[in-house]
């Protein structure tokens, strides 16, 4: 034992080494458990369907109405399929907005009547009313009480179950964060700096309060918030290690993000309110873009900062939320107007702003989200193809004509040849990743923090080096899970408004992560975007929570 201790300066060092040795294994296991516990319910709980009403046919058959927005028609993709030759493929949309049922004719040949009166535009339908689709009569009636009671009972059980599971997952998340914080304290010298334990204490307290508040308010599953906490904890670990000076700022951003999330989630829960608030967001975004163009300041080649003296922020980050909302529409509107002019105009304004402030990476993210949203909106593959090829051409032109972008592409694929010039950041990221192995060298013991933007653009390398490839991939998997979650919740979504908002937000998360991770390791050109929730940066953090609220809104 003496011989062992003599290798260390003191016995304390030995204890610290042992601690790092153990958590290198323990933390990936914990993170994996958190991920697994979050993923599994996605496959289990989805069979549960709530019936809002029934459509009774003349022959006595009844059709359950399971969504707030139901496409009725002959098409296989209709929610209520009526396979009769005189029914149009997309005949009508039956919606439940603001506690009222309404039906909208989608320009069908046979027409729509409500109680025998022609319903050209959106027409209210009350329980007991007769809807006639091209001569086919059906009556809208509420679900029978008995059934509902049984179902509610079911729900109570399943919700209390999910309460228990989510509190265990939450506990795992907290344990993970405590272990990580202790590791940083150890490797950055104990006692000398109280900022790390203080920041983590406040953070854990904040997430506990948020957890209790949210749980009390909502009976929905709690997976997204828990994973949000998990990622935020990781961003604190990264900031504590790479930029300790920004620790409190990041902590404040996380708390602000949680507040934004809570408010936004509550505000848009009501569809009518959400549709109105969308225009407020777009107006604010327009102001932010104008401000950025006029008083924006340039850092690292992009003029994407605003300095208000007491606070600096990146307006285009905040615009992302408005951008996603701008593309949303309820199903009836989506199928009647098919008019995307407002969204395209808004997107155009965003692209012009991004081009003027020379933020190429963010432009790619916006464009990707634009493609996803416009496809969700129109479902038109030809338009999609046209848009993508036009963008590819535009991108090509941008790369060829703009030297500052061309420089970034020049090193792409050959970063080791330019290891100390234009490939500096990528090679250092790969060196860091290789140094970390699968389990990392231990939090706070890396070297990548010496490289500029290690905690933002190169954060994947920092994750790999200090916490290992396994944990880095789990973090990436969590963000991919957000996207899968958005896809899954679209199936049973209340409104296409939320479905588009969720998928658009998920697209932004996914594209940012793709560009950041693959860019920093030279699979893609380095474009300098952040990883949502993970990278150091206040505006990015708040935006991430905002977008998460939109993903959450689609959940039922």
């Amino acid at each position, binding site marked *: 034992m003496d011989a062992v201790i003599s*290798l*260390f300066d003191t016995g304390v*060092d*030995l204890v610290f*080494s042992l601690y790092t*040795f153990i958590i*290198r294994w323990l933390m990936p296991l914990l993170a994996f458990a958190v991920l697994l516990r979050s993923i599994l319910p996605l496959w289990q709980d989805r069979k549960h369907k709530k019936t809002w009403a029934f459509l009774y046919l003349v022959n006595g058959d009844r059709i359950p109405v399971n*969504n707030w927005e139901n*496409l009725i028609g002959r098409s296989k*993709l*209709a929610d209520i399929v009526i396979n009769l030759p005189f029914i149009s493929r997309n005949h009508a949309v039956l919606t439940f907005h603001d506690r009222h049922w309404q039906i909208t004719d989608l320009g069908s040949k046979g027409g729509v009547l409500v109680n025998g009166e022609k319903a050209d535009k959106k027409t209210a339908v009350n329980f007991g009313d007769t809807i006639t689709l091209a001569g086919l009569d059906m009556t809208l009636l509420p679900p029978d009480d008995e059934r509902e009671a049984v179902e509610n009972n079911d729900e109570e059980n399943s919700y209390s179950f999910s309460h228990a599971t989510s509190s265990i997952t939450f506990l795992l998340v907290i344990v993970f964060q405590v272990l990580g914080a202790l590791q940083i304290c150890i490797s950055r010298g104990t006692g000398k700096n109280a900022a790390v334990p203080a920041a983590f204490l406040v953070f854990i307290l904040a997430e506990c309060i948020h957890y209790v508040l949210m749980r009390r308010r909502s009976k929905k599953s709690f997976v997204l918030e828990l994973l949000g906490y998990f990622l935020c904890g990781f961003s604190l670990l990264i900031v504590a290690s790479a930029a300790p000076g920004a620790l409190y700022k990041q902590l404040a951003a996380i708390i602000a993000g949680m507040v934004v999330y809570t408010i936004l989630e509550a505000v848009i829960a009501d569809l009518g309110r959400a549709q109105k608030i969308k225009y407020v967001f777009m107006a604010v975004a327009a102001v932010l873009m104008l401000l950025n163009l006029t008083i924006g300041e340039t850092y690292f080649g992009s003029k994407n900062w605003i300095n208000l003296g007491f606070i600096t922020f990146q307006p285009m980050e905040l615009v992302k939320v408005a951008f996603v909302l701008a593309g949303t529409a309820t*199903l009836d509107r989506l199928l009647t107007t098919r008019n995307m002019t407002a969204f395209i105009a808004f997107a155009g304004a965003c692209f012009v702003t991004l081009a003027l402030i020379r933020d190429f990476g963010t432009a790619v993210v916006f464009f*990707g989200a634009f*493609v*996803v949203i416009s496809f*969700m909106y129109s*479902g038109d593959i030809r338009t*999609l193809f046209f848009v993508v090829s036009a963008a590819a051409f535009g991108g090509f032109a941008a790369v060829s004509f703009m030297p500052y972008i061309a420089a970034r592409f020049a090193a792409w694929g050959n970063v080791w040849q330019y290891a*100390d010039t234009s490939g500096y950041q990528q*090679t*250092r990221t*790969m*060196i860091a*990743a*290789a*140094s970390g*192995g*699968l*389990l*990392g*060298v*231990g939090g706070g013991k890396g*070297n990548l923090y*010496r490289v500029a933007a290690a905690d933002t653009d190169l954060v994947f390398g920092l994750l790999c*080096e200090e916490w290992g*490839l396994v944990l880095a*991939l789990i973090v*990436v998997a969590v963000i*991919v899970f957000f*996207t*899968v979650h*958005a*896809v899954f919740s*679209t*199936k049973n*979504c209340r409104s*296409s408004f939320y*479905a*588009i908002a969720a*998928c658009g937000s*998920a*697209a932004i998360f*996914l*594209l940012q992560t*793709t560009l950041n*991770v*693959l860019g920093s*390791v030279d*699979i*893609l050109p380095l474009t300098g975007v952040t990883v949502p929730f993970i990278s150091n940066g206040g505006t990015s953090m708040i935006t991430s929570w905002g977008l998460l609220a939109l993903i959450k809104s689609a959940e039922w």
Partner: protein
Amino acid sequence: MKLLSTRTAVLMLLIVLFVLGLAAFNIRYFNSAFAWAHSHANRHYYKNGMLSVRGTVYDRNGDVLLMLDGESIEFNAEKDVRTAVMHVTGDREGSVSTGVLSALKGRLTGWNLFSGAYSFHKKSRSELTLTIDSGLCRAAYREMKGRKGAVGIYNYETGEIICLISSPSFDPQNPPDVEGNPEKYEGVYLNRFLSSAYTPGSIFKLVTAAAALENIPDIENKHYLCEGRIAIGPDSITCLKAHGRVSLQEALAVSCNTFFAGTALELGAETLQKYAEACGFNNSLEVDGIRTAAGKINLKNAVGADLGWAGAGQYTTTANPLNFMAFMGAIAGGGEMVRPRLIADDSSSFFDFKPGKKVLKRETADKLKAMMRNNTITSYGEEKFKDLELCAKSGTAEVGGGKEPHAWFAGFLDRKDCPLAFAVIIENGITSRAAADVAARVLQEAAKALKQGRNL
């Protein structure tokens, strides 16, 4: 919501693309992480471009060859030793790419895919024991007397390389002005034993003999009349003198060119090529991860006198000293070649243990062994190699360009208690005797060391 649900396919497509990109990164990671981690920019391992890990490299007797303490790299205390083993240890600047400091840096850093650069305690040291005997290396280097060339000896039963020197060398503790003395330090960063390939000259006759033994019926009892020269087409093959009536064994002992030229023509280019490749030509070996240069042979266009000269080792063919030494080991080992290695008690070689590679038929190997023993007795002088049971072949390789020929001497000791195979090459050594003299003294030294109880 079915309609919108189908339209989320575009999002799924983005996920698939991202996952594919991640897979591409992971494949690159698993293939290249070693190289990334050992980039000179990695602060875990390098400071100002110099290896900054802690570790010690020992020779087989526990003598320190290299001492790394994180700040500096120290070599053996004795100048002659560190000069002799410089090509094995490498230099501080990493100019010797086959040295431990470059080629085996992974052993010093301890990096692996699983743990990366993690170490349990801050001051962890790596320990590496090599198979070489530094005293023997010093002796061999002294025997070279500044001439350019290389000496290598290995145990053909265990594969351990006990002597590996390349001349010229320099003191890595106090590196000289190499660029200022291009003549003196020509190719000094090259380990000539591992990374060079020379015209083999007469030592190649062993390959021709092996092919003849297996392909020409009753070759051992045939006799041939050497008149000192034979004409093949417009060209001719010559011997130093007319050797008269010679058998295969006698032809090998006197190194009769015309005999082996005739044999090569009888065998044909294809057969000779096949045997040369089996004996290690056109093949590089890996010594604990250090790749050797390959000797080259290409007889595709060799006809007439060219093929004849090729049979006598004088064509475009080249031989790498280490590969040829391994071929000697194969003859000694009854046709089976044990791969030479440099790292002692290597746990990793336990896992990728490969049985000896079959190079020759056992009886062919034994016949060659007997003939090589006869070479020593009748041609090289048994008194010089007293008690060594030496089996060998000398070679004088004409290099043209008005330069003196290279001197080769290669073979093995047919002794159970001292199973050593060796190769010596002296550039422009004039006669093969020069190489034989070096071999004699170094092998005697090795035998003496063995008697003294140094575990060879």
